[in-house]
């Protein structure tokens, strides 16, 4: 019997194997970069390992994963994980201890939840991880996923998996009724399995770049099939203010339908198909046929990209939208609408089974798990209210925000009539101005008087006609706005019987003080904490700088479907007794500057 001659390739395969075998006795020299990479990997894992959370049912059965992001116990996980645990989960850390926890905030569409772990000793800090910048993550980067797959670790020590980033800026459509939409997410080959849900994805510096949440499964069953997805941390950062404030937050729509010009076109172009009546997009002048160039600064050339960039913003955020109309480029600042139609609980059994599934919590026991439970201490920190995941935390954040505002001056002792005078620039004219606001917590008929060119006055609680409230003409309701401002400073939260809540974080766009045209809308962006109030028929949004807690401005809505009166406050100086007030008040309405009031003197009336 003859043997076939081995093929050359097989011989080639054999030779190094033999040589390698011969070299086994010799000390193996490993290249420095390999050793460095290994050291870096070990260091990264060691650093973040203690902050990885096993999110469990009350009582301790495994469910999902999470990660601590602050020393006071705030941790991120998936919405679909807390959906299974209820608002009072138990959380295991790598130290083997099971902690009580409470739900703080929700982003159901984004599949994110914020929970807070309670320390065993008051004030004892938790280990936590730093947030990275997921926009810097690139295809091919190494990544580490951690969590508690298959509820393997009975002592909560996290499982670590290692792999490369397969894709960035991925779009995975929602499941069920619009929930669990993964926009701009990170695709990984790093193995994630049932139980990894809500757990962290790290870069090799040990920074948090995402929250693992779902995968693509098909024929191979609901275990890792080489394709997992993590919610990008930069998207979560946009919602973090909302989450911390206990808000049941919502994603956004533009208020216009945008689609590709033609599926058959050689190069995709995104065009505005229809603009929704009454939407802010319509009021900002977005038109059918406009070609969408950039959304919030990002170039948009495909449906997926558009959904990606739209999906990372909470509703009500104002973002710059650049369009091409004929041969002109136009940039608009559009206030995004809510995604309310999709904000419905998924009905059990409704709809076809989804193709792309969240990594489900492992089903180990068939025993029904009580939704309520947890410790009495955690239960005290859970207060339900419509529109909020946990109202307790909204009050907490709101009161902290108000306390910071108060540092600029306590105006309660000067709650009487205020007046201010100075020079106003309205349109092209300069003129002297004077305004006077009276009021108080229980004043049933306060009066605002404003003298610009003519004398005007408004009784905000009596003159309820929208046209009167919007006076002066083209200001959007400056007198009403001044009344609300006076009330916020002098009366505080008790003065807003309709609502006084923390509204999460939003960008704010104060225009240059010298009245020059801004370089770009994006250059104006200042990130703020928002306070939302309602008093009488008027709703207001107050923008407080995240940097120095200054009230940078506010918007007063005479009616929900109208543009607000936008008031920008600057040049804070002492207005007497150390109380700081803005000496430059810019009023804008409908993308136009109504006027600027330069205050020379405030008179604050005693109570």
């Amino acid at each position: 019997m003859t043997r076939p001659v081995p093929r050359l390739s097989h011989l080639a395969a054999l030779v190094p194997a033999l040589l390698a075998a011969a070299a086994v006795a010799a000390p193996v020299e490993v290249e420095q970069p390999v050793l460095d990479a290994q050291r870096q990997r070990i260091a990264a894992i060691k650093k973040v390992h203690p902050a990885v959370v096993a999110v469990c049912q009350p009582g301790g059965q495994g469910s999902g994963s999470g990660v601590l992001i602050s020393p006071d116990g705030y941790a991120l996980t998936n919405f679909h994980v807390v959906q299974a645990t209820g608002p009072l989960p138990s959380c295991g850390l790598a130290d083997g201890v099971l902690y009580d926890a409470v739900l703080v905030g929700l982003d159901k569409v984004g599949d994110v939840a914020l929970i807070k772990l309670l320390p065993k000793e008051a004030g004892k800090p938790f280990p936590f991880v730093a947030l990275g910048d997921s926009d810097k993550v690139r295809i091919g980067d190494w990544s580490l996923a951690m969590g508690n797959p298959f509820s393997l670790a009975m002592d909560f020590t996290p499982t670590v998996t290692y792999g490369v980033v397969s894709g960035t800026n991925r779009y995975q459509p929602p499941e069920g009724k619009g929930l669990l939409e993964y926009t701009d997410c990170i695709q990984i080959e790093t193995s994630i399995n049932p139980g990894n849900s809500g757990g962290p994805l790290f870069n090799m510096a040990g920074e948090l770049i995402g929250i693992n949440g779902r995968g693509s499964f098909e024929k191979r069953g609901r275990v890792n099939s080489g394709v997992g997805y993590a919610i990008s941390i930069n998207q979560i950062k946009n919602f973090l203010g909302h989450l911390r404030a206990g808000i049941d937050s919502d994603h956004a729509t533009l208020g216009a339908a945008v689609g590709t010009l033609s599926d058959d076109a050689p190069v995709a172009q995104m065009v505005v198909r229809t603009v929704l009546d009454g939407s802010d997009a319509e009021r900002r002048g977005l038109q059918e046929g406009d070609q969408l160039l950039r959304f919030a600064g990002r170039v948009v050339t495909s449906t997926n990209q558009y959904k990606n960039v739209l999906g990372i913003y909470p509703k009500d955020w104002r973002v710059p939208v650049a369009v091409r109309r004929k041969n002109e480029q136009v940039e608009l600042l559009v206030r995004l609408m809510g995604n309310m139609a999709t904000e419905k609980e998924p009905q059990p059994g409704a709809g076809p089974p989804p193709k792309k599934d969240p990594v489900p919590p492992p089903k180990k026991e068939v025993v029904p798990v009580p939704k309520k439970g947890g410790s009495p201490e955690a239960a005290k920190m859970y207060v339900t209210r419509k529109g909020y995941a946990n109202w307790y935390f909204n009050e907490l954040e709101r009161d902290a925000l108000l306390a910071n505002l108060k540092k600029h001056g306590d105006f309660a002792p000067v709650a009487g009539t205020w007046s201010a005078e100075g020079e106003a620039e309205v349109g092209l004219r300069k003129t002297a101005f004077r305004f006077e606001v009276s009021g108080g917590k229980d004043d049933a008929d306060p009066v605002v008087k404003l003298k610009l060119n003519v004398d005007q006055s408004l009784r905000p609680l009596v003159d309820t006609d929208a046209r009167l409230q919007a006076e002066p003409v083209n200001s959007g309701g400056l007198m009403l706005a001044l009344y609300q401002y006076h009330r916020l400073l002098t009366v505080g939260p008790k003065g807003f019987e309709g609502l006084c809540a923390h509204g999460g974080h939003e960008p704010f766009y104060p225009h240059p003080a010298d009245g020059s045209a801004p370089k770009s809308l994006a250059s104006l962006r200042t990130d703020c904490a928002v306070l939302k109030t309602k008093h009488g028929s008027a709703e207001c949004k107050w923008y407080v700088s995240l940097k120095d807690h200054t009230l940078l401005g506010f918007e007063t809505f005479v009616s929900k479907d109208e543009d607000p009166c936008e008031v920008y406050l600057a040049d804070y100086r002492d207005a007497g007794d150390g109380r700081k007030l803005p000496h430059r008040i810019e009023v804008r309405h409908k993308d136009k500057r109504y006027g600027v009031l330069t205050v020379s003197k405030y008179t604050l009336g005693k109570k």
Partner: protein
Amino acid sequence: MTTRTATLIAAALLGSAAPAGAADPFHEVAEKANQKLVKLFGAGGFSRLNNFGTGILISREGHVLTVASQLLDTSELVAHLYDGQRLKGQVVATEPELDAAVVKLKKADGGALDLGDDGFFNFAEAAKRPPAQTGDWVLALTNTFEIALRDEPLSLQRGVVMAYTKLAGRRGVFDFPYTGDVYVVDAITNNPGAAGGALLNRKGELLGVVGREIKNTLSDTWMNYAIPVTAKVDVKFREAVKDKDGKEQQVEKTVTVSMPEFVTLGMQGKYKPVIRGDKILSGEGGYHGLVFVPNILERTPAYVEDVPPGSPAAKAGFRQDDLVSFVDGEPVASINAFHAWLKKNTRPGQTVRVEVRRGEALQTLELTLGTHPPKPAPPQPDPKPKSP
């Protein structure tokens, strides 16, 4: 060999094969390779047949190498380039033995396509490189699960070569048309839409074409493989040749088909695939043991003359004078047709459904084919064959 030389060699080997990539950024490799790949969209979209796949650009003019799947059975084949361009494609060559096809992309306006120097893989160069070794790191770039559209980059995965081997011996286990060498990889690369994607080495050089989704029917596990750029398959087939007396004789021939040749000729539009009709897929097919009536006509009806005891046919319950009418639903016109069908479609161990006319009624029999006896007895009119 001195210790020093051994160390040097070991270091050199580590330099080439060890995971130095732990420090390598794969990003640039992935970005460059992504520009040489396309997303394909074609026929399918029903009963788990995907209407999406991946393709590898192999010429400046827009030739694409991909898997010869049902995806290509359309006149509306579409490719999305890395920059979002949408182009139509036309199949110019297929070779089922290599499970490969070459598609030519064209511009809508009919103008010439020029992808530039960095816009395609030089296939001839790739085929000259030695194959990757077991244990080498590899990267896969595919449009797995149709995640990417238009200008979105393909999905990157990384793994090692687990084996460089033939799956041929396992053909009863894998439903698989290709019998040559494959790279078996440990990354879960072969998902819906990934077929036709690129298997690369760490430098981004083309090693192979990511294959289909195949499942081991015995263990219910999935296999991740790629067909190497150097793939070679020996195809045996029968050809009718006239002998010196002018009589037709069936002669067994072997032709070697190779990926480099297929690609080169395919791009020139000159490739002629091996005729599959006469191909011997699995030797003689399964063995049934039936003895038919003398095969004297071109189309002798498949009447059973005898059923040797103990033969597969006997076990299935065949009887003398049965007329074989259908096999697995296919009408059987003649003894020749029956044998041709078995050769083409069956192998030992397989069960086929046979309908026989017995008297006035059709009977259905389940025939489990066996292996041919060392010297298969040709059907003889007489004398009756001895029982084995």
